[in-house]
């Protein structure tokens, strides 16, 4: 029994450590993209278009993962793609986490009219099927890196607001909060000193999960042509641009999707174990 438990722990940690390594690799390639990528992600050359990756016949080590329909180096574009994914993910998650936590805290802590108004706002936001909401906003705004970040940031705050509000509602009647109130602590102080530390772990778990979601959503939007615009190398745009060449060079269809799948899987797995660690 103890042996089995130990084995389970190791196996769990092994999977988890692999995920950590993957996440680290993505963050590093995102930050150091200019130093890591062998070529420029924008350099086109009609004479070396659609080269296969190195493991196929005619593959060269100069272009490890081959080239796309315009002769751009796929490996370099994938590395820069990590940069786009992580930028959009970080940006959108930061905005929505701040917004959602703030709204949830206010609604739960102050209650009354403020709570009513904020919760109606949440209802309206939830009334939009999420994808429709992003589409309306992206129709109005010119799609760019910044607009994607803002649009996803403002459309994803609801999950934080709901969870944090529920947490605050149950926390605010607990003795340590009441004691602080009796001692004359200001609302700001109670929130900062007593509520935020307890909420933090929950926000962290939600943020990690959402990071994964945002990578998938950005990929879909870019693939639909209303997200990141070519020639910027996002994994979604790579799939969109590569689509006419899939039957000629199959790796163009596989590689960006695998990059997306692996990074999202790592993030989702890490969020799962964070949840276990914090006991949520």
């Amino acid at each position, binding site marked *: 029994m103890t042996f089995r438990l130990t084995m389970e722990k190791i196996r769990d940690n092994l999977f988890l450590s692999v995920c950590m390594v993957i996440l680290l690799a993505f963050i590093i390639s995102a930050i150091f993209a200019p130093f890591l990528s062998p070529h420029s992600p924008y350099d086109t050359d009609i004479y070396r278009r659609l080269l296969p990756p190195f493991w196929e016949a005619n593959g060269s080590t100069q272009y490890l993962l081959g080239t796309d329909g315009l002769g751009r180096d796929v490996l370099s574009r994938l590395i820069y793609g990590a940069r786009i994914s992580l930028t959009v993910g970080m940006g959108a998650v930061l905005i929505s986490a701040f917004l959602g936590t703030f709204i949830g805290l206010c609604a739960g802590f102050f209650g009354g009219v403020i709570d009513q108004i904020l919760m109606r706002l949440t209802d309206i936001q939830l*009334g939009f099927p*999420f994808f429709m909401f992003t589409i309306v906003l*992206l*129709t*109005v705004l010119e799609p760019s890196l910044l607009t994607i970040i803002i649009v996803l940031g403002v459309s994803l705050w609801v999950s934080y607001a709901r969870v944090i509000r529920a947490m605050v509602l149950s926390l605010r009647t607990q003795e340590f909060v009441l004691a602080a109130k009796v001692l004359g602590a200001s609302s700001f102080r109670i929130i900062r000193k007593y509520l935020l530390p307890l909420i933090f772990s929950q926000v962290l778990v939600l943020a990690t999960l959402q990071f994964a979601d945002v990578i998938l959503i950005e990929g*879909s939007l870019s693939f639909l042509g209303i997200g990141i615009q070519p020639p910027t190398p996002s994994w979604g745009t790579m799939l969109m641009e590569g689509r006419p060449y*899939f039957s000629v060079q199959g790796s163009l*269809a596989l590689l960006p999707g695998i990059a997306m799948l692996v990074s999202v*899987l790592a993030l989702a797995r890490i969020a799962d174990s964070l949840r276990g660690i914090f006991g949520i």
Partner: protein
Amino acid sequence: MAKFILRRLLNTTFVVLGLSTLVFFVLRVIPGDPAALLLPPTAPKEAVDALRLSLGLDQPLYIQYVRFLQGILHGDLGNSYRLKLPATALIAQNLPPTFQLAITSLLVAIIIAVPLGILAASRRGSALDVFIQNLALLCQSTPIFWLGLVFIQVFAVKLRVLPAISGTKLRGLVMPAMMTLPVALLPVLLKTTRSEYVKASQEDFIRTAQALGLPRWRILVYTLRAVLVPLITLIGMQFGYLLGGAMIVEYVFARPGIGSLAIGAVAARDFPLVQAVVIFTSGVFLIINLITDITYSFLDPRIRYQEASA
């Protein structure tokens, strides 16, 4: 009960109104003159003016807004700029394929997810449980548009067994509705079934049933009944998600439908059509949520009592 339904109905009406207003004003903020956008750049100024007049765009914003609201009340969501047809007709025309896709995918997902969830829950902590949970994690992390592209490569291009462009025929439905979209719906259904089954099987009434020595199938039936309520809520709530997924899948497999309609409208900056599709889908979404609320208060009397005392 009637009071409960009435209150929910009022609430929904309020949200739909708020939504429509929001959509109307957001889409009017866009700089540029739609009339000028619709005509070729060389069109004479008189033609642009005439078009603006016929679209009612010369009126002040609040009059346009009142007309828009009147239209909604009469079931008129305006005309598409590009296709010159009433938006409601276009929606009605594109609704059946989306409905077909959504229902098939949901059914396939439920048929796979519920038994797997129960299996995982009843062998909690076993290798099988871990495997099923990791499977859910894998599905959750898969970009479905990419999965669709890979399926097209494998089954349409290499093996040539299924059509790449999905019509409304059954064979065309296999890849999008039975293999691609269910993957996106599976994880949440599976996880909820598992956790709710675990929760339900620890309840007092199940322990009593076990102590009384009831046959296993009857205990299973009791547990399933307890799982049903959260599951129905979840399925109702997943509708919005289903719609987003359907949109992408329609695009990948070149299927007609609400999603393709919306994407086309966005690409052509056909604002009345975008507006109509958004209001329509949000309306359906809210009505489905309303029906879900009412259904589960029928299934679980406890919710009714809570509502009544609240």
